[in-house]
């Protein structure tokens, strides 16, 4: 009986989607996109227009996204709890993984920071670079399961980076403008030091995302599945 109702549900969903496709105009020009494309260069000074949209035109959405990630990491920590001190630990990984982890850590750090700092010039930015940083800090924990990530330092970095993001946004309000308006000089399009506070905002985002995801992965790796 359950299978039949589930199959009926899917057939109904397929019919609904086909009906929507008949009426919908896909690939039609929305209103804001072309206007943003034309004016983002002069108005924001960033070479990557998607970065300009994420941080300057829709900066508040990025702040809410950071809140969602923070909530997810908090829920993960609350639900899983602390592992017992005398819990059995996995054995150390083989030679290849240990040597590879030692080799990869500085490389991943450099690549992650590069992607974060060039977010306003080339495709990239805080979220992508933050994921690479999280991998950089988690792979040594994978190679040697005895060493735990320093959760105090990770939480400190995460909190300070999130506070830095909000502070830079509030500084704009001191100048009488809207929250999270980009400040500082726009600079020359395409140079590394350009687009005002956008690189600083993305740096804060990247550090926060990296610290958060590294802490979450370490929590998942250290938990026990059975009582």
């Amino acid at each position, binding site marked *: 009986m359950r299978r039949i109702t589930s199959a009926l549900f899917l057939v109904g969903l397929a019919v609904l989607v086909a009906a929507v496709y008949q009426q919908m105009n896909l690939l039609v020009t929305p209103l804001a*996109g072309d206007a943003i494309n034309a004016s983002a260069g002069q108005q924001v000074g960033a070479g990557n*227009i998607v970065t300009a949209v994420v941080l300057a035109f*829709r900066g508040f959405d990025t702040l809410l996204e950071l809140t969602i990630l923070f909530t997810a990491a908090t829920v*993960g920590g609350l639900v899983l709890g602390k592992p017992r001190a005398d819990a059995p630990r996995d054995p150390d990984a083989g030679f290849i993984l240990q040597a590879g982890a030692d080799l990869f850590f500085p490389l991943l750090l450099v690549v992650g920071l590069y992607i974060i700092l060039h977010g306003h010039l080339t495709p990239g930015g805080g979220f992508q670079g933050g994921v690479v940083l999280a991998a950089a800090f988690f792979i040594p924990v994978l190679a040697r399961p005895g060493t735990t990530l320093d959760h105090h330092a990770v939480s400190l970095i995460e909190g300070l980076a999130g506070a830095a993001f909000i502070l830079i946004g509030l500084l704009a309000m001191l100048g009488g403008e809207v929250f999270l308006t980009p400040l500082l000089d726009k600079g020359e399009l395409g140079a590394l030091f350009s687009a005002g506070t956008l690189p600083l905002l993305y740096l804060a985002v990247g550090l926060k995302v990296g610290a958060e*995801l590294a802490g979450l992965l370490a929590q998942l790796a250290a938990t026990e599945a059975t009582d």
Partner: protein
Amino acid sequence: MDLTLIFYVAAVGLMLIGSAGIVLSSHLLRIIFGIALLETGANLLLLLATYREGAAAPIWVNGKFPLAMADPVPQALVLTAIVISVGILAVTLSLALRVHRAYGTLDIRDIRQRMEQDIADAAGIDMPGSSEAPLPVYSSAESGS
């Protein structure tokens, strides 16, 4: 074949397969796989609004912006959506691990039975009966005259 149609079929197909996985599976991890597929399909559906014929990516290249650029607003929205899907995955996996620690199994039918039993025991009431259970046979029909 129209390029639009192929992209649309991919997005909708992924969403349908993900929904089917969530609704029809009985193992908790298959349900989480279905959630991940559903989110991926929804992101593709949202990103279909960014494409223009003959346009380039909205990036500053070789000293100038390209003449025709794709729409940056859906790209920014999908960026947010992908990161949110990671957050959702983290929460559901933590909950699955916790459920396994508490009940020892990952079959949702077993878990639902035992969870309702535990809740009913803790509240001191009877467990609500299933609507598919057979009706009880009334003994008064036999003992009456």
